[in-house]
């Protein structure tokens, strides 16, 4: 089975912060993106796969497919950085058996009804609901955009919402 070096929710999926900071920081040699949206956009999927730095392997799965791989062999081998694009996808994966214990929230996108809670991370009511649901499943949730940030706990964040 693979070791999960980091599980992160980041609406930008693979981008500068992830490649330059988190990949090295977490000592991961693989990235797995779990996103149904990306699977519907093969061109974008290829952009991400092309972006793989030397020595890192990138796999993109839909939620169902990713959970199958997890059930079968816990993603095989290596140190894996797992990326979800939004909280809904993370919760869906959790309910399909990907019972991750610790999750980093790095960015949830933007929009008019969203409130900034830490750095550039925003939340809406629906996100808060999902976060509470995950916390009730004893998932440790922390908010951190780059390694230099002091990680914020869910209860610290909810006070700002």
């Amino acid at each position, binding site marked *: 089975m693979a070791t999960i070096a980091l599980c992160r929710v980041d609406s*930008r999926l693979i981008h500068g912060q992830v490649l*330059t900071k988190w990949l090295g920081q977490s000592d991961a040699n693989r990235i797995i993106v779990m996103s149904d949206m990306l699977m519907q956009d093969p061109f974008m999927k290829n952009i991400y796969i092309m972006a793989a730095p030397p020595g890192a392997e990138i796999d993109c799965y839909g939620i169902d497919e990713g959970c199958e791989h997890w059930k079968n062999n816990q993603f095989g081998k290596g140190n894996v950085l797992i990326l979800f694009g939004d909280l809904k996808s993370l919760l869906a994966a959790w309910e399909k058996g990907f019972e991750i214990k610790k999750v980093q929230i790095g960015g949830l*996108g933007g929009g008019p009804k969203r409130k900034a809670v830490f750095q550039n991370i925003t939340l809406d009511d629906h996100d808060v609901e999902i976060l509470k649901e995950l916390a009730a499943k004893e998932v440790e949730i922390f908010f951190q955009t780059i390694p230099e940030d002091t990680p914020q706990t869910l209860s610290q964040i909810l006070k700002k919402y």
Partner: protein
Amino acid sequence: MGSPKAEILILTHGGWGEKPIDSLKMIWGSTDRVSEIPLIAHYTFDDYFEKVKGKVAQMAEHSLIITDLFGGTTSNVSAKLSQDYNIQVISGLNAPMLLEAMMSIDTLDDPQTLQRIIAVSQQGCKDIVGEIRASLKNSSVG
């Protein structure tokens, strides 16, 4: 003649691409056909995509986007736009790259131009002290 003129669009994290354009003005003179759109930290992928698309939609065919970081959002957004627009995209912005691109702005439709811009930008990256030491060593042996 009369065809629209190709442009150069620079995309960087935080907008540091503005500075090389200023420098270019000092060396080259006019930079009317060079512009930049900064990726600001709070932009989402879609925010930035729409902003860049607004500019790219008005640019002539074979215009060139130069991004700062391969794998970064600046590059990913450009790559996605290449699906719908006939543009060229290179990553790894540096001063030699931008100068060469500026000098080649009227031949961006020639595939060799892009290869030359990339070669020039790579040649501009050198271990200066290492090169000096190697050359001193060679001359003292000789």
